[in-house]
């Protein structure tokens, strides 16, 4: 069983479209995250949720809206996609903010 699973693995779309990425963890963790990795491998935190509550919003454009229906799920919806949104998006979870993170396998988003 995959601990942190995210779908889809690949997402190719046109500029201006709206898309969603889903994430689920079966580890019973309280905290979930979205990270963005750019083409230079730089990994930057976007959001973190603790027990469905938004804890960190790292000055991400409001076109990005995370939603956590329960503590096992954290989805990311992106409106009006732009070329600069092309990146790999990783979902992760941890039992506590200071403990190790478990990452999903990533969603490669390509905006054309």
């Amino acid at each position, binding site marked *: 069983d995959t601990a942190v699973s995210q779908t889809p693995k690949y997402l190719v779309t046109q500029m201006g479209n709206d898309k969603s990425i889903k994430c689920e963890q079966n580890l019973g963790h309280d905290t979930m995250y979205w990270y963005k990795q750019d083409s230079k491998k730089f990994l930057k935190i976007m959001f973190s949720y603790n027990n469905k509550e938004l804890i960190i919003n790292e000055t991400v454009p409001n076109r990005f809206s995370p939603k956590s229906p329960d503590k096992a799920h954290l989805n990311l919806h992106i409106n009006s996609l732009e070329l600069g949104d092309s990146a790999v998006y990783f979902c992760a979870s941890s039992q506590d*903010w200071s403990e190790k*993170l478990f990452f999903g396998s990533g969603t490669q988003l390509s905006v054309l």
Partner: protein
Amino acid sequence: SQQGEEDPQALSIQEGENATMNCSYKTSINNLQWYRQNSGRGLVHLILIRSNEREKHSGRLRVTLDTSKKSSSLLITASRAADTASYFCATDVRGGSNYKLTFGKGTLLTVNP
């Protein structure tokens, strides 16, 4: 600017050799973590060292932490081709009232058979 910076950016060695990667950070931390990322995959946690620890071992991995110099090193002994990956250090950083785990840009390690 980033909290953690790995050095070197890229490292190429022969199988069986040791690989050392360094990480420097700017602000005080509670812990420092090292992760590995194989090409096209998610990050995998390797080791966590707390600010009151100086050295930690896990199999062929040895991590040191020098809080006075704000630096850490990851040593992989007797490297294997399967160790080829990017290695990232991550530090916990207080952001407002909350902490977050901040990653460096990574070291790309290539182990040649």
